[in-house]
């Protein structure tokens, strides 16, 4: 059988997609374990089940395109090239963390990889993505801004203001809606008058489409095509990616708003084994190769946990640092 995958990407890149999805899954499952042990505290929103979205979408972007996201964003940072050790250390609240332990799970950020932040006010990232796109256009950089958000965010005013603004100013923003059907426990049908989210952009003259988010190749191809269109036309575009989170909204969520049968149905469509099977069937890799990638990812995550465990806590003096640029003496009487 002729490989449809190979027609789209070289073998190395296909394997990379699989490897990244496995790394994300291993990382998230390890986070769950570390949370249970009390090493990770606060809010923890895991991405398991949605890997094809972060991995496929990132592969469709240029390395220097801006990425902003919400609070379920570890994989988006990792796939972008964030060091798993620094991400895990951030989750542990250690000084070696990506944001020195000041951000935590919901606030990853690394300008070196153009990962411009995880934001935890639902929809807060929309105008920021629009602003990044404006800066890129103003400076003639040719970068687009990819904005990840969930189905829950589309009923915030920011979504509508952002779509209108990006179209009005002709800015290169790629809106990537991860529709996992639930805003915490409220189903998309109970929150959106028009649950077909991609259809909601017509009021802003922003083209859109819907993609199967359990298929990493489908996401990759759609995002690649859309990103190039956005770049070429300097116009916004929206992709609604249909996906599913296997775990609760956060670690505190027992998930009583959805049935076990529904979850099982979606788990049967797990994007990782599905893609692995295709890779083997189409002769890109062997089953052993896949096992090897899995083992490698497990090792990377284990090392990240050890790094985080062994890293020092932030110094007390850090409390007063990084608040103001070039001035830690704004409130000297409080110290």
């Amino acid at each position, binding site marked *: 059988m002729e490989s449809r995958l190979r027609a789209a990407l070289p073998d190395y890149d296909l394997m990379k997609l699989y490897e990244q999805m496995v790394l994300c899954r291993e990382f998230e499952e390890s986070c769950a374990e570390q949370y249970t042990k009390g090493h990770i505290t606060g809010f923890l929103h895991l991405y398991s089940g949605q890997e094809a979205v972060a991995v496929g979408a990132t592969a469709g972007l240029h390395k220097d395109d801006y990425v902003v996201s919400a609070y379920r964003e570890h994989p988006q940072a990792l796939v972008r090239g964030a060091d798993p050790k620094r991400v895990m250390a951030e989750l542990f609240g250690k000084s070696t963390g990506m944001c020195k*332990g000041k951000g935590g799970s919901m606030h990853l*950020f690394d300008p070196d990889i153009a990962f411009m932040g995880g934001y935890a*006010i639902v929809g807060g990232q929309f105008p920021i993505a*629009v602003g990044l796109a404006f800066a890129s256009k103003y400076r003639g950089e040719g970068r687009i801004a990819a904005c990840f958000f969930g189905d829950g965010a589309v009923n915030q005013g920011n979504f509508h*203001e952002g779509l209108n603004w990006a179209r009005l100013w002709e800015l290169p923003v790629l809106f990537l809606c991860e529709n996992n059907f639930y805003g915490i426990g409220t189903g998309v049908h109970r929150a959106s008058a028009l649950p077909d989210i991609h259809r909601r952009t017509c009021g802003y003259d922003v083209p859109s489409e819907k993609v199967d988010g359990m298929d990493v190749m489908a996401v990759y191809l759609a995002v690649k095509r859309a990103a190039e269109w956005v770049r070429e036309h300097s116009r916004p575009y929206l992709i609604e990616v249909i996906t599913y989170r296997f775990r609760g909204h956060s670690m505190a969520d027992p998930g009583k708003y959805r049935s076990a049968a529904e979850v099982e149905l979606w788990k049967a469509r797990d994007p990782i084994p599905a893609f692995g099977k295709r890779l083997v069937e189409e002769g890109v890799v062997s089953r052993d190769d896949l096992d090897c990638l899995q083992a490698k990812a497990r090792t990377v995550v284990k090392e990240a946990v050890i790094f985080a465990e062994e890293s020092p806590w932030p110094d007390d003096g850090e409390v007063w640092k990084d*608040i103001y640029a070039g001035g830690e003496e704004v409130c000297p009487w409080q110290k």
Partner: protein
Amino acid sequence: MAEMTYRDALNMALKEEMRRDPSVVVWGEDVALYEGSFKVTRGLLAEFGEGRVKDTPISENTIVGVAVGSALGGLRPAVELMTVNFALLAMDQIINHMAKIRSMFGGQATLPIVVRAPGGGGSQLGAQHSQSLEAFFMHCPGIYVAVPSTPSDAKGLLKSAIRDNNPVMFLEHELLYNSKGEVPEDEDFTVPLGKAHIMREGKDVTIIAYSRMSILALAAAAELEKEGISCEVVDLRTLTPLDTATFTASVKKTGRAVVVSECWRTCGVGAEITSLLYENCFDSLLAPVQRVSGLDVPMPYSRKIEKLCIPQVEDAVKAVKEVLSQKY
């Protein structure tokens, strides 16, 4: 030096900084074609073009949010909210984003943003257009708050705010736009953020104020001088950073303090300044600190009663006499 209005001084600062640095961009509601509802952005579109001076939809939260994003992308936006009252629609981007991003990302981000917003009462604009919200912003760490009182400071502080790498809420007073004063025309003239200004030296009592209330304090001091009372007037210029050293030194010298602010009394700027005085100058205080502030009411429209809600010169005069008549 040239005599000009507070409005024109602000306009001059914007033009000078836009000429100096191509990364300075301006947007807001009606700032380009209409040249600003208070005409502070007059002539900007003509000189700098529609790529740099942009009208926006009426979407205040996005006006600030796009500034945040573009600052992350390397620009220095100096945006306008038509009035500070509309900043309440942008509080998510101001407080949850602009004020937090540098800190929560471990110092990796720099946000050189100015959000200009006219405010204050006294024009009979009713409850929704007459507010003085500076205490809201002063309460929140991570943003600077500038409150210029004179044309010269308006220019110098705005230039500093645009050049500074921190986000600045730049709060202009609507009743000061037509006030006139001498303004340095030198393009290198700036007024540093965080340095209060002793507008008038005196020995009997210190009046601490900012924005239009500093002008009111000067008027009160002139009146009191006729009665032989010598007032020192400290204009704060910025509420964050707050120049505690200057006003505490003044109060240690005079032993008496009156704090005048236009905002509501409860948890207002005056409350904070008064606390700082008690914490830092308790032993020097000869009498309890007096607070003059706006009344804790939504602003009424009618001229006759609106006046009651905003500090007047007589209120400051009365407070000074009160603080002079009391002792511990």
